[in-house]
């Protein structure tokens, strides 16, 4: 397959990436059997597909994603959940009594799974548990930075959890809840998350995050949960 980019080259919308239209992945599109970039980002080949990892991208809900949302409306047949930016999710519960018995109210923060996303909107899976988050700090980062925050097999997020002793709930939509043993620990975790958001693409990030956290919470780290 002839390709027209070098690994991790910065590509711009409209740039020709490959002649083989069958291997078009995320961030690309095909036209006349050829692959072109649809976004600015790094082009690479992943799982035998040409993909563009964007620098900026709005969150696109996909079935199976775990997201954090805020209950924005209670209706006779369910709930409406604000997922940030332009996105609204719905939980459909046919029985009115059941709606009341869930105990959810407007303003509650929930951690839920997406069942489907399409013409009927974003529908929340109610078979997997709808978890109401009781306490913590809710922050929002750019959804494109979420993979970096989690790191390879959760390495980055586990580092923050270990050093601060906080529980961190990450929604793929960019909402994050941080719940820690002390305000200092929570503050440190928030700082680390913000640092990752701002410096996601500058190398040596893990070391810098570790250094920042050690400065803020002390070398020993908070008691781990």
């Amino acid at each position, binding site marked *: 397959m002839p390709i027209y980019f070098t690994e991790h080259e910065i590509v*711009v919308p409209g740039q020709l990436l490959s002649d083989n239209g069958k291997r078009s992945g995320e961030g690309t599109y095909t*036209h006349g059997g050829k692959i072109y970039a649809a*976004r600015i980002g790094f082009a690479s080949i992943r799982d035998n597909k040409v993909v563009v990892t964007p620098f*900026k991208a709005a969150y696109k809900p996909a079935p199976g994603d775990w997201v954090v949302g805020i209950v924005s409306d209670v209706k006779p047949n369910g709930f409406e959940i604000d997922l940030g930016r332009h996105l609204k999710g719905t939980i459909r519960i046919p029985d009115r009594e059941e709606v009341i018995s869930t105990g959810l109210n407007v303003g509650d923060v929930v951690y839920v799974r997406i069942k489907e996303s399409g*013409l009927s909107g974003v529908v929340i899976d109610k078979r997997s548990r709808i978890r109401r988050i009781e306490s913590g700090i809710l922050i929002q980062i750019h959804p494109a930075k979420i993979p970096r925050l989690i790191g390879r097999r959760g390495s980055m997020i586990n580092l923050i959890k270990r050093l601060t002793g906080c529980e961190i709930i990450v929604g793929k939509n960019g909402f994050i809840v941080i719940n820690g043993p002390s305000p200092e620990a929570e503050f440190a975790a928030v700082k680390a998350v913000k640092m990752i958001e701002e410096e996601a693409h500058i190398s040596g990030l893990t070391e810098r995050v570790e250094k920042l956290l050690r400065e803020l919470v002390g070398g020993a780290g908070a008691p781990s949960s």
Partner: protein
Amino acid sequence: MSRPERLIDENGRRVDGRRADELRPIRMEVGVLDKSDGSAYVEFGGTKVIAAVFGPREAHPRHLALPDRAILNCRYHMTSFSVEERKPLGMTRREIELSKVIREALETVAFLEEFPRAAIDVYVEVVQADGGTRTAGLTAASLALADAGIPMADLIAGVAVGKVDGQLVLDLCDLEDKYGEADMPVAMAPRFNSIVMLQLNGRMTVEEFKRGLALAKKGIDEIYRLQREALKKKFSKISPEEV
């Protein structure tokens, strides 16, 4: 400014010293504003334009939202200090029309079906006007859209051609636009050679039109190259670390 005696002198030089097929000095910068999702600044000589993109965000009023794709709102506006005589605030007929043609051009390249029910707002603000503001605005708007991370098939580059003292010229300035015989703004998605905006004010023969289009294409190719450079420059400091 009053009409100069001649718009092209005996050496074939135009009022600002350019040759007939020469563009004005172009400057482009991406990501100039902090509070928008994407932004760009474009300068074609004395024409200075800022474009900002917000979204995708919730469509307001809600009944305008479409179930299968995002709506694109566009506002082309000239600041009151952009022209010699103060332009009153608010949208004139001309500005409403240009908002529409810019929106329709952007709709041809943006993959709006990626964001059902959402709205994307594009603001094009002319800081200083010296001819060719709609093409500069469209050039800036497509850069801002790309900067905002909206998926799109191609960038859009635009330039005006016109007829001045009986001669075809590229990238009209204000004087040539006002006192020339014809003005034809052209915008293209250069990757597929598709014209996304074309207007013509004045008179041209069919043959002149064809030559004019070819001349515009030449200018657009150069602008397109500068656009890609400007986009890549913004992100060039970023190093690819594995995620």
